[in-house]
């Protein structure tokens, strides 16, 4: 196995062909582990403080099912289309890859648009970061996720430009695969925000 790892392996998908790529992908998984720890601290802060609403609104008064569901479905579908992009890449279909990446970007942009509208709506209702411990920790947790999605959109645009310039090579394929891991991971985090912040907030 150790010897095989050094070879240029034709039987593997493009993104795994070189040892450098394989190590990059493994390294990115390690990074995602660190991201889990980062979000865990923000979840812990939020869950400890979310009933400390002071004179501001409570989670139940603030959250609206419809808006949250739209954001959830947009991000979930974008994770699905991002998976389809990698699927097309593995069939060596450049047009399919680019199409699904673009759809993913549009859905991601839709998600961010709804999230910003949601935040603006809260602020207009007097629910700002300074209002209560609940809202401080809410905006930090959900905002950190939103910042990740925004970064992912910029990153994916750069990767698309590079594919257009260089075509599908073991190197660009590896970059697509890694940005896809990042994108799916953002949906994993959102599943817990949906569950522990929004649904829990509407129940308690």
């Amino acid at each position, binding site marked *: 196995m150790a010897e095989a790892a050094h070879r240029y392996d034709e039987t593997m998908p493009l993104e795994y062909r070189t040892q450098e790529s394989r190590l990059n*992908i493994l390294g990115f*998984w390690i990074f995602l582990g660190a991201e889990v720890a980062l979000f865990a601290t923000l979840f812990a802060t939020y869950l400890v403080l979310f009933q400390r609403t002071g004179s501001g609104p409570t989670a139940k008064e603030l959250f609206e099912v419809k808006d949250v569901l739209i954001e959830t479905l947009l991000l979930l*579908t974008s*994770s699905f289309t991002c998976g389809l992009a990698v699927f097309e890449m593995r069939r060596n279909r450049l047009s399919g890859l680019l199409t699904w990446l673009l759809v993913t970007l549009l859905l991601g942009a839709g998600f961010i648009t709804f999230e910003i509208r949601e935040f603006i709506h809260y602020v207009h209702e007097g629910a700002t970061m300074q209002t209560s411990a609940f809202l401080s920790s809410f905006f930090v947790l959900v905002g950190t996720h939103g910042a990740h999605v925004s970064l992912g959109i910029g990153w994916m645009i750069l990767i698309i430009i590079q594919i257009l310039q260089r075509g599908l090579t073991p190197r660009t394929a590896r970059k697509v695969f890694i940005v896809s891991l990042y994108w799916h991971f953002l*949906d*994993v985090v959102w599943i*817990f925000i949906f*569950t*522990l912040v929004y649904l829990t907030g509407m129940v308690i």
Partner: protein
Amino acid sequence: MGANHHHETFPWKHIVGFIFSLLLTFAALWVALSSGLSTGAIIGIIVILAVIQASLQLFMFMHMTESDSGKIQTINMAYSFFIAVVVVVGSIWTMSFVL
């Protein structure tokens, strides 16, 4: 070693993963808002549904177990989730005595 996907012509795995994710999302929504269960039961159930959906993403969309590093990747993510649970549950438990 399971990284070879050249022969698949239709993304069944992704479609099944997507449909199950949708079902789990709406199931969680229903349990939370319409089931009429106790608060404790609701939170227990929706957390389990979230863990299942997160696993679907990791296994069906992110191909966590493929390649030579599949085992390391899986252990890495399992350990990070262990740390997450310790941090979150530990914080809530500790602060339940203070606040």
